[in-house]
Each structure stands twice: as structure tokens, then as C-alpha cells.
């Protein structure tokens, strides 16, 4: 045990740990889903969890076959010029502008980015 704890061995070990950690960091970047640019990236930037949005969006799309992404994005974009994303979601709840994803009741402002994310992922 004493022989292993030389200054030289400690430095080699520390260097190795840095390499391993760096490799893991790169691997996680590579494993993270890569999302191609979309015309709606300004709206999708509101979403913290893109994968969840895609999952919800796919369910919403299945019930909204005629979803017009461009128009929906325009409407939401126009709303967000005058209010925040959070306020838009609150306003939807206040006025009953709700969508259902297999029964999950969401404000429209939360649902539209999901639809856009799912559409972009198709």
C-alpha cells in the first residue's frame, strides 16, 4: 500500500481521472438528442424539456391531424410580443383555452410548443 502512494503515482492517477471525466462529459453531449434547427426555435426556446414536449406533442398531433404549425406559431408568437410565456399559459387557463393530450388538460400556450416540437421531430 505504501508503494502505491508515491507522488508520481498520485499525479498519474489524477491525470487519468481528468481524462475519464472529460470523456464522460463528451459522451453525454453526444448522447443528448440533437434537434435540428426549425422555423420555430424562438418558441421552442421557451421549453426547458424538449423531449417531454415532443412526447406530449406527438399525442396532441394524433388528435389534431390538420394542425397548421405555421399559423399556430404565428398566433403564439404574436401573443408573446405582449406577454410572457407564463402569463400566456395563465391567460389560457383563465379563459378555458385548453387542449387534451390523452386526457391531460394543458393550456394552449403550453400545448402549442409541444405540437411544434413534435412536428419538427417527425
Amino acid at each position, binding site marked *: 500500500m505504501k508503494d502505491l502512494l508515491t507522488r508520481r503515482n498520485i499525479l498519474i492517477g489524477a491525470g487519468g481521472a481528468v481524462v475519464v471525466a472529460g470523456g464522460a462529459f463528451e459522451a453525454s453531449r453526444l448522447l443528448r438528442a440533437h434537434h435540428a434547427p426549425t422555423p420555430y426555435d424562438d418558441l421552442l426556446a421557451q421549453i426547458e424539456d424538449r423531449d417531454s414536449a415532443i412526447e406530449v406533442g406527438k399525442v396532441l398531433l394524433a388528435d389534431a391531424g390538420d394542425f397548421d404549425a405555421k399559423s399556430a406559431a404565428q398566433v403564439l408568437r404574436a401573443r408573446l410580443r405582449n406577454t410572457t410565456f407564463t402569463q400566456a399559459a395563465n391567460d389560457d387557463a383563465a379563459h378555458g383555452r385548453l387542449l387534451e393530450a*390523452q386526457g391531460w388538460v394543458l393550456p394552449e400556450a403550453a400545448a402549442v*410548443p409541444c405540437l411544434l416540437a413534435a412536428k419538427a421531430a417527425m
Partner: protein
Amino acid sequence: VSAFIDARTVPEGTELQTDLVIIGGGPAGISLALALANAPFRVMLLESGGMTFEPRTQALYNGTKTGVSYLGLQASRMRYLGGSTNVWGGWSRPMDRLDFEQRSWMPHSGWPFGLEAIEPYYPRAQALCEAGPWNYEKAENWSPEQGAMIALGDGGVVNRWFQFSQMRNSYLPTHFGLRYADDLKRVRNLAVYLHANVTRLGLAHGGGKLDQIAVATLDGRHFTVKSRFTVLASGAIETARLMLASNDVMPTGVGNQNDVVGRYFADHPIPRNIATLVMFDGKVPPYYLGNQGMQGAVMRAGLFPSEKYRRTRAVLDSSITIESPTILDALGKAAVSVTANALGVNAGNAAAFTLGGGCEVTPDPDCRIALGGERDALGMPVVTLNMRLADSDLAQFRGTLKELGRQLLLSRTGMIRLNMKNRSDWLAGLDWGNHHMGTTRASADPKKGVVDANLKVHGIADLYVVGSAVYPTYGAVNPTLSIVAMALRLADHLKGQMR
């Protein structure tokens, strides 16, 4: 103190006389008998069973069913002293003012009296049910150490409270037969007959009043009762059965000149796991999830559509309860994530719960008790039930659940998943409240109802009905407390009639 009389000891062919006979020893009959204690007239209570469950007697309740899947007709009710309180859950809550009103959006609605007619009797009814002090909505935010009530955004669903019956502070709800047997024995003007099955309401010639009541026991004895007044307090199925089967003078049965007896049968649908509730902070106070002792009562919070919401949105009454924790699937987790993100709240501790509940149904004349071809051990026709449940009623309940979801989003406290989409979803998880109602509905119009505002049978001078059989509409709360209140009101009316 006088002992109960076993009808099997009454000599064959005896004719008993009294001033008032109550048929049925459930919560309505017992409450009525107790309320008439020491009145200046004689009262008789006829109970089919004894003091405990007896299979042969219970089998007299057997019947057949068609239509929507429903409980066995021998279930839900108990044919011995105490009646259905021998199996009730103790849930208590008064009806709302709107429950009594004629509602333009609800066919066949409207009682011949309002809440104000029974409101004065609720405190005594609450005492008889041993449901504690009259807390209900006064209980709001009484239990801060257990957490504040669920914050709901402005809208149609509100927090409300149930209270629970507790027999002498035990864990059991009050079983009226067991609890009040000694009190009944102490009533000097009352004679209680056990094992006394009424098999016929004998109308006098012309059909305008009763002449005599035929009684039989399962061991083959028969006797009759002559009484100035008669009250049927035997539940919505048995009351209709007895009136329909007593067809020797009036071919359509007693009080059935307009073909209303037995129609409009109803129960509260209790579909299970109707929705999933997610609270973003993971917290639901324990008084939503189960009964809690609070301010001298046992209470549980629930979520109800307000009267204003029901009125303005033209929807049926309902009640929603939070049942138990559940686990979210991947879509549920994703929906919570994106919704909390949009609302700007942290859902890191989010937790999910199943929702249960019950709803009012629209009165349906074709949901009906009728007589079948078979006969029971006493020779009485066995009943058949055609049970129905309208999609539109279920859709209204779903709409109320969605309103709850909207309010949770608005308050940024949580969200909801609606688990029922189509009729097969609803029917798959369907249970019932065990609340038989409506077969001798009250109405000022003899063509639309069987009893009038005083619960007297239209066209018959001396016959009354009490119990949830008289409900023309059904609300969404458990009926026992209101049944008792209506029995106490009837007692006052009968005292006036006897003068």
C-alpha cells in the same frame, strides 16, 4: 319499557288496530317513530326482519335486472331493524337549495317544496345520525397543521366537506336499529313488530283510502292491521313493489293511476379512477384522502361544482374525492414537465393521486322498477329493474372534472388527467352509491308524481311515503341525512293531521 313483539307470535287472523302504522324500520321509519314519541295517538312500526341478518328474510329482496350493469337488488339494503343503515358508510352532507328547484335544462326536475322545508330539521337529523356538530363549510382552514385546503383558481368547483356518522363515537356509522332499539322500546305509544312483512295495502272500495294492511310471516302466519294513517318507509324498491303489487282494487296498483309508481328509479353512479390529479408541490392534506377528526366531528374534504356553476353552465351536481397516490407514466411525467414549465412553477416534487366521485343523473321514466312473473316465499311478485345511464349525464360530469383541471392550472397548483373518454371507459370502472331513489317521486301534479308536498300519496287520503323514494331529483350527496330530516318533517305534519 316494552319489548318488541315478534309477529310470529300473533295469532293467525288477528286484526290489530292503531292510529298510525309505519311500514319499514330503516332510518326513515325509526326516525319517524322516535319523533312521534308521546304523541297523543298510537303508533305501530312493522319491520320485516328481526334484530340481525337472516338469509331467508333478506332473500325477499331478490329481483332481476336488465340494462346497464347494476348491483344485486338484494344488496345495498338490509332487511332487518335499521334497514340500510346496517351497511351504510356514514357519509353525511345536506342537499343544496338548487337540488330542489325546477331546472330548465333538466327534464322532470323540481320538488314541490324547497330546501327551506327541511332545513329546520337538519340539526335533529344530524344528531340522530350522530354526525357531530354542524361544521361542514365552517371547517375550512380549521386544520392548518395538516395543510391548507387545495387552492383553486376562480371557477365552478369548490372545496366542500362531508361529515361522518359515528355510532356512540365508535368507528362504525350509526346502525339505527342497534343504536335506537332501547329508545324505541321506551316510547309508550309505540308498538314495534319484528318479522312482520306487509304483503298488501288493502284499498277501501273506491280506492280513496286504505281499509286494511295484510301482514305475513315467513313461518306462515297472517294478520291484518287497521290504521287511520299509513306511512311507507321501506325504501325505493320495496315501496314501489308493495304499491304495484296491491292491485286488487285499483288494477294498476296503489297510487299508480298515472303510471308513475316504479318509474324514475335512480342511484348515484360512482365510477372509479375517473381522473388523475397532480399537485405540483406533491402535497394533499390528509383530510382529502381519508376521514379526519376535526372540531368534534369526523370529516373529509371533497370537491363539488358550486350552485352558481351548475346554474350558469346548466350541469348536474357531482362530488369528487381524492382517493390514493398513484404513479405517473411517461406521458404523465412529460405533461407535468411541460405544463409546470409553461406556468413557471417547480414540479420537482410533483405527486399524483387518483380521483373518485359520484354524479347526479337526469330523471328517466324508463329507468324503472316493475313486477316480474316470479313470486317470493310470501307469494309477493318479485321485482325487475331496467337500469339506464345517459351518456349526456356522464359527459356533464367530465365537463366538471375538466373545470377542476382548469382551476388547478389557474392557481398554478396542479393539473388533471381525465381518464374517461367514452361510454365503455365509464362503464368499465362503474360502481354505484347504493342509493335507491325516485320510484314514488314527489310532485304537486298527480300526473307527474306519486306523493304531494306533504309526502301524501295523491288520491289516497291516509297513505304517505317517506325516504329517498320520494326524491324527484337526486343531487349528488348521500341521502341518509336528508331522509331523516324529511321523516322528522313528516312527523310534524302527521301530528297536525291527527288532531
